[in-house]
């Protein structure tokens, strides 16, 4: 679905991406994690066609990304600047559907159904500023769902909400991903989260970033905030990703095991 080959980008003399290669298969949820300032957002903005990378190639559904691709949606971290405050939640969700050629009534239905799926069936008439941060981010997710993109990009989507809301939103994304067979590239700086939501975790190094590791989580699709986090596989993977993010190597450290 998405193939990134040797992506390089510099801001002036400062090189942030030093040749990133990764791919996302259809229906997969890939999380990209890395130390802050490592160029995660640059990577995502390049895929979205919002930024022209200095070098490398991005192929989406067999075509090179040069401008913003047609059926791509994005959920930004800062929901308050992504939703339009002069429109109700339902209109925020429905507006992008115009280009899909739906008439007014069908747009409305699609918006209401998407809001229903994110648990906001009754909030269509509310304005973004009448909602909590978590609700606004749900509207943002509903907007992406209704749009039915072939690729959904999420840029630290849970970075600005409280811990409880964050867990709810993580499960919401896992749910809709499974339900719609959506392909998602999610960027986060949170190690725990990257493992919990991802089918695969791609770890970036410090800038200039390259892929330090590309790990399958093998946790299955049905996950639980408490139970999954207690699994050995989860704990081990989280530790490994943590070491990688801090600049360590993939080799399993033996110290903990030896002491037992």
């Amino acid at each position, binding site marked *: 679905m998405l193939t990134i080959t040797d992506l390089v980008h510099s801001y002036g003399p400062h090189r942030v991406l030093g040749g990133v290669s990764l791919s996302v298969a259809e229906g997969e949820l890939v999380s990209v994690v890395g130390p802050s300032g490592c160029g995660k957002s640059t990577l995502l903005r390049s895929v979205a066609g919002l930024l022209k990378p200095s070098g490398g190639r991005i192929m989406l559904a067999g075509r090179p990304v040069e401008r913003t691709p047609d059926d791509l949606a994005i959920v930004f971290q800062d929901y308050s600047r992504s939703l339009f405050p*002069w429109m109700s939640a339902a209109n925020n969700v429905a*507006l992008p559907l115009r*280009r899909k050629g739906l008439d007014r009534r069908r747009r409305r239905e699609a918006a209401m159904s998407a809001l229903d799926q994110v648990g906001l069936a009754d909030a269509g008439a509310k304005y973004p500023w009448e909602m909590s941060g978590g609700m606004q981010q749900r509207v943002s997710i509903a907007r992406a769902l209704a*749009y039915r993109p072939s690729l959904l990009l999420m840029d630290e989507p849970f970075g600005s909400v409280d811990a409880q809301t964050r867990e709810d939103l993580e499960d919401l994304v896992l749910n809709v991903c499974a339900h719609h067979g959506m392909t998602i590239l999610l960027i986060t700086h949170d190690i725990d989260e990257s493992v919990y939501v991802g089918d695969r975790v791609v770890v970036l190094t410090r800038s200039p970033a390259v892929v330090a590791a590309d790990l399958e989580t093998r946790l299955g699709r049905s996950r639980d905030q408490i139970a999954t986090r207690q699994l050995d596989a989860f704990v081990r993977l989280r530790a490994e990703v943590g070491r990688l993010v801090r600049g360590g190597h993939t080799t399993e450290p033996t110290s903990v095991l030896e002491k037992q």
Partner: protein
Amino acid sequence: MKVIAALGRLWLVPVVLVAWEVVTRAAEQPFFPPPSAVLARMYEMWFSGPPSRLLLTDGALADLGPSLARLFSGWLLTAVVGVAAGIAIGCSPRLSDYVNPLIQFGRAVPPPLLVPFFLALLKLGTPAQLATIVFGVIWPILLNTVDGARTVDRQHLETARIFGFSSVQRLWRVVLPSALPKIFAGLRLALSLALILMVIAEIFAGTDGIGYRLLYTQRSYLYPDMWGCIVLLGVLGYLLNSAFLLVERRVLAWHRGARRTT
């Protein structure tokens, strides 16, 4: 309770009126008639008509009608032109670079100075008056719209781009609403400027209207009538501003709401 509180804040108005009345009566100056005499003249001139016409007399219609028509047509015309041009300039940095020096020069020219020019160029009366109003009030509308269109949140524009908004959609659904709070600030300033310029235009280039009446009464030594014109203009300005704020509060309800929460 609210009404009482509002009335409580207005106590200074009657106090000033009474003081003015006492001082002008004691001074017995023909240039400063007491407010009671001014109000009496205002009543006779404008507000003693039949109830079917909201008490307005023929004189009121003759003075207020043309003035208000000029004020509103000038203001609305300028609003359309100013907002359209402002959005275009705000969205195009290159166009902005070209026209910015012209705008800066144009707005530095005091609009009343152009009345003689407009009189030479256009017909005496409405055309010259409208030109004066349009030229004077366009600057706050234009500059505020440019500023509003230029400072649209980058993420809003990126959202529009990601979801493939057409340029019409981007303009109507993103740029214009984002710029609206600033546009309204410009329109409000322009409205009070339009009132001033309307009076000036009528004084210099008028054959009717409140400004013309003001000049006429002054030249005829009808000082209570002249003061009546001044008071009427003050009240008009106050009412226009209040009405505008009422509309603004409705149209920009989202803006007030969004500002309260962030």
